[in-house]
């Protein structure tokens, strides 16, 4: 009998507790998991590419309900500073790092740091030489080089293709792609290694390559800034109309070339998709643990007459307002 009294008392107390809990709107159970923090560490704080990668990552972060911290190297900072930026983020609690590496040597060191802190690393839009074994989301630069060469050779029917490039990681990948495409098309790719992207040394070098290859009908610049330099020299040498020029990316000078007809097309990366997909892939790894080690984001070839088409405008002018 006494036992039943205790049961009644316990039932009454629990009942009152449940009633208070039920009627008290502020006592919502804390269902949300702690917010994940991801750091995006860019190789530069200038340029359209970095800004748009950031935009894409921010869109994905909002969608995933995660926090995104963004750090970037300033123009004059050494690539090693990126290590410090990553370390700061890891110590601040970042559980994932999205890195656009400024240097090939960085990737291994950042990977070790992430491993030490139990964080995951994903590389964004860098050349193959920089990637190491870390997961990668970004443009297949070899493929985009081949894409550009294919179109240029197909449009012009040229058998010799002058490739102007300034030595660098991504340009090297593109060059590799161009050579593969030329080989496939039975054409010859002539390498024009330019010491700088603009300025007199660049102009002189471009001029030299144009003069050395008077029978060339197609010129491909693997760097956006080089395109304007090449267009200027072509014009200066009176070759405009005889030569078809094409380039990569969408900086202001290249757009000008497209608008005035100096350049036939541009091959654009999709940095918004790189940032967005990179973030989502990293989150997927953090939550599910599985994701493909490499996810390529296609580049797009945009002819000059299509740059103002609604579907291309935001790609060509990503920051326009």
């Amino acid at each position, binding site marked *: 009998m006494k036992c039943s009294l205790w049961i*009644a*008392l316990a039932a009454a107390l629990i*009942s009152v507790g*449940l009633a208070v809990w039920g009627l008290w709107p502020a006592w*919502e159970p804390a269902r949300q998991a702690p917010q994940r923090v991801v750091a995006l560490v860019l190789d530069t704080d200038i340029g359209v590419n970095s800004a748009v990668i950031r935009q894409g990552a921010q869109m994905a972060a909002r969608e995933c309900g995660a926090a995104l911290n963004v750090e970037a190297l300033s123009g004059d900072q050494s690539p090693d500073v990126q290590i410090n930026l990553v370390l700061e983020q890891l110590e601040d609690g970042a559980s994932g790092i999205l890195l656009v590496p400024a240097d090939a040597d960085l990737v291994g060191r950042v990977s070790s740091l992430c491993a030490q802190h139990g964080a995951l690393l994903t590389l964004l839009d860098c050349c193959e030489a920089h990637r190491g074994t870390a997961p990668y989301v970004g443009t297949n630069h070899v493929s985009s080089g081949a894409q550009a060469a294919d179109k240029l050779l197909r449009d012009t029917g040229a058998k010799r293709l002058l490739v102007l490039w300034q030595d660098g990681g991504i340009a090297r990948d593109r060059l590799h792609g161009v050579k593969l495409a030329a080989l496939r098309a039975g054409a010859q790719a002539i390498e024009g290694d330019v010491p700088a992207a603009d300025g007199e040394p660049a102009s002189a070098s471009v001029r030299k390559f144009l003069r050395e290859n008077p029978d060339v009908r197609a010129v491909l610049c693997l760097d956006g800034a080089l395109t304007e330099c090449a267009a200027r020299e072509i014009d200066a040498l009176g070759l405009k109309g005889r030569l078809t020029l094409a380039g990569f990316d969408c900086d202001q000078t290249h757009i000008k070339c497209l608008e005035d007809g100096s350049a036939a097309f541009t091959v654009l990366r999709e940095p918004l998709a790189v940032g967005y997909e990179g973030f989502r892939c990293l989150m997927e790894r953090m939550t599910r643990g599985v994701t493909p080690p490499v996810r390529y984001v296609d580049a797009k070839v945009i002819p000059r007459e299509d740059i103002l088409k609604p579907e291309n405008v935001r790609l060509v*002018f990503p920051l*326009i307002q």
Partner: protein
Amino acid sequence: MFGRLRRGSLQLAIILSSTLLVAAILLVVMLGLAAQGNKTVRDDAMSRIRQTVTQGSAALGSYMSGAMETVALFKSLAQEAADVESGDLAERLQIVRRQRADIAGLSVFSKGGELVFSTAGQALKAPAEIRASDWFVRAGLARPSTVSVSQPYLQDAFHGQYAWVVTLSTRVKYVRMGRAESGILAMDIRFRAIEELLGKVQLGASGYVYLLGPEYQLIYHNQLPLIQLGLKGEDTDLIRKNVMGEFFDTRGERERFVVVQTVDSTRWRLVGVGYMDELASANRRTIRMIALLLISGILMALAVAILMGRLIVRPLGRLTRIMSTVEGGDLDVEIPAQGFTEIRDLASAFKRMLDRIKILMRENELEQEQKRRYELDALQAQINPHFLYNTLDSIVWMQERGQNQDAIQMVTALARLFRISISKGRSVITVAEELEHVRNYLIIQSIRFKNKFTYTIAAQPEALHLRTVKLILQPLVENAIVHGLSHFMTDEGRLAIEARVEGDVLVLSVRDNGLGMSPEEVEAVMARRLGGGIGLSNVHERIQLIFGSGYGLTIESEQDVGTLVTLRQPVIREEETP
């Protein structure tokens, strides 16, 4: 289960039944509330989406109307200016423009598409391209007072200036170099202003709005870049099928409520998308609250049921223990009247029953005692040593006097008397046997009393086979002889014995014409106060003891007339004999 419950503990039955009853009632009520709450929340959520989209559409419409009024203002300034190319007009237009950061540029073009005036400087495009522009064509075709609204596009008409704009254009008349001309006034407003306006429209955590052009093309969407990249999708065909109004889209994982509104002053459609699961979060809270209150109510009912069960069962348990004590033989226990009215009534009834049992037990004890005494009396009546001695003495005397025939008759009667007295140990005999016994007794007594009385024995034939208690008549007859007839002279006394049936009653009567009794004496005889009364009262009590208080002896007597003693007992046939 119910059978087991019925056979189980009362307290458990009370707890389970009341708890289940309360739970069932609460469940029904709570389910009703939940269903109603769900409907209300859903309706409320839909209403909020509707209102939000309507407000967004109204805000956008209002913004566009304001922009059109600005165009009208610019138009009037241009028309009023003495010369459209004068610095005065440019200054006035710049003043107005500076007040509106959302205006990207203001231009006046001639009919041929040549730039007449612009706040941006020289146009980049050729007049033919300007003429082919959508906004130019629209304004040219519209009435002079109409302001046309273009779709958002990248404005690249001017050197080095790119802007994502919507152009509002209208026909305008102006004076240039002293000549009245007409052309098109175009005002570019930054689409960013519209994006900011729509960005403020909130539809829950993941709901959103988007803007469709006249051809159902997306012109604003918070994920437009991702849609253009193919990373996201928005099915505008649904809107094409539901141009106005609202509908539910249940094709995806989450149910969406879609509201479509046309924006005033434009041919745009604002589409609001709300996710019902998200909007129903309040409903989840309500359901949670109801579930908690339901469990709380059931637990409270359980607690109350336990207490009530205890209150009810505890006095019953006490009563049960008292009954066990009574069963053990202790009838003097105290029965407390506690608990509910019914239980107190039960205790009182038990108490009354116990009191009655005590009385009955005492009566039973008395009856048993009396029975034993009556049996002893009967035994004594069967073997009355004086009667035997006197009879035997009479037989001896008759032998001495040579009255052999009388002696034989007396011995024979005595033998028969004893044979019937024994009756093989039976206590119930037939009326015929009882009358035969009395007859033998009277034979002996009439010889002993020297024929002072005569007697008759009469019986209805149907009475002879009925049953009566053995030796019940002999005391009556003995009483009549000893106290009524013994003083008579020879043959003066009359004794009549009769047996008859009156309905369900067997009547045996002994009538004498003796001395009779006064009423006081009759009363004294029945109360055993007079000598010889012992026999009558003994018979009366034996009859009542066996057959109940409705039967027994009645004495009717009158002094010097005689006495009639009537014995009434129920009719007992042979097959009913115990």
